């Protein structure tokens, strides 16, 4: 069995927004911010639920520990960032947050008289749209946050709690999920445009460099050609020894040979850019 190393989104193929890859560094940074958000958010949540009896603290502690482990991994891997590992870390982080929310929502709803439902899940949908290192990772995270809230509300919340909290649920969660997905699409389309623009700018830069190189080459070629023209003219008119004039022609031909070698170098550059 052979492996196929070809990139399915190769040069010349139209890259769809859902296939857009962030740079390794951007993906790593986004995952780091998301994990930090989890760690710091859970600490704030911890301060909140300490005043709310009955809400379990253990899921929060687990999530903070997961965040710390992920932060250590992100810190250790910061010199060799990868989109793949940023995506995995992001998904693990999202799973940890979803676990905390599923574990504490019902108790919070019971314990807090004016509990506003699924605030953190709604926030998670928007954060995923802003920070997901890949489109599919963002989509999975948004679905995870929103579906867990909807399912929990519909099937695991007692009817009296459902009645007490916002009667509009689960539609607000679904609206946030939809908003998150649209924002995610918008973000990756924008990244796609930025990448296309950067590619065009790089091409323009390369073409300008080549144009300058060819102008310089023209300038370098024209002096030897002029020497040859004048030498031939002098040769025709001269009755004297022709050796100095022939020497000049030789020098100019040599100059033209050197210029030709410069042209060969630039041909290689053009070929290299064409392969990009």
């Amino acid at each position, binding site marked *: 069995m052979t492996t196929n190393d070809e990139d399915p989104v190769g040069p010349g193929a139209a890259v769809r927004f859902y296939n857009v890859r962030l740079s390794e560094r951007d993906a790593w940074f986004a995952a780091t911010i998301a994990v930090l958000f989890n760690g710091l958010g859970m600490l704030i949540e911890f301060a909140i639920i300490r005043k709310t009896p009955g809400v379990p603290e253990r899921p929060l502690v687990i999530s903070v520990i997961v965040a710390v482990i992920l932060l250590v991994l992100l810190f250790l891997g910061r010199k060799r960032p990868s989109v793949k590992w940023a995506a995995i870390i992001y998904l693990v982080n999202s799973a940890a947050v979803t676990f905390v929310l599923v574990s504490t929502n019902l108790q919070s709803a019971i314990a807090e008289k004016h509990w506003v439902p699924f605030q953190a899940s709604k926030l998670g949908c928007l954060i995923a749209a802003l920070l997901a290192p890949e489109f599919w990772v963002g989509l999975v995270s948004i679905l995870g946050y929103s579906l867990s809230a909807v399912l929990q509300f519909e099937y695991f919340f007692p009817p009296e709690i459902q009645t007490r909290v916002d009667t509009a649920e689960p539609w607000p969660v679904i609206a946030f999920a939809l908003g998150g997905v649209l924002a995610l699409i918008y973000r990756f389309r924008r990244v796609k445009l930025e990448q296309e623009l950067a590619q065009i700018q790089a091409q323009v830069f390369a073409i300008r460099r080549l144009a300058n190189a060819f102008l310089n080459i023209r300038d370098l070629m024209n*002096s030897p050609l002029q020497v*040859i023209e*004048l030498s031939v003219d002098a040769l025709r008119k001269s009755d004297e020894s022709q050796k100095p004039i022939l020497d000049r022609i030789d020098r100019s031909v040599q100059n033209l040979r050197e210029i030709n070698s410069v042209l060969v170098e630039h041909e290689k550059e053009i070929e290299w850019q064409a392969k990009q």
Partner: protein
Amino acid sequence: MTKDGARIVFLDDNEDLRELLPALLETALRVECLTFASVIDFENHSDQVLDAKVAILDINLGPDVPDGVDAFNWLMERGFRGKILFFTGHARANPQVALAEKDGARILEKPIHPDKLVAAVRFALNEA
């Protein structure tokens, strides 16, 4: 008609051109032709340069050194009253040369046939 005894100054970094062009012009036009390899050398001989009837300037004189446009500006600042000809490979691509053209400078694009070169310099001498 040529002007016997008139002086032409020629600025070019190509040594062979600095030998061939004066030989051609001195023979065809009976003029004195002084050559310079750099703008610094050109400026160091200001008395002879400013007294010339025609200045022929190459533009690209090598990397990181003043070019023919600098020499043109230097001549203009000192009230040079002769004719200025740019003798270069890619004058049209240089916006400063386009500006110089508006100030009366002319452009001779290398490579140019010797007869046309002589005719252009003769014309400039007659105008000067």
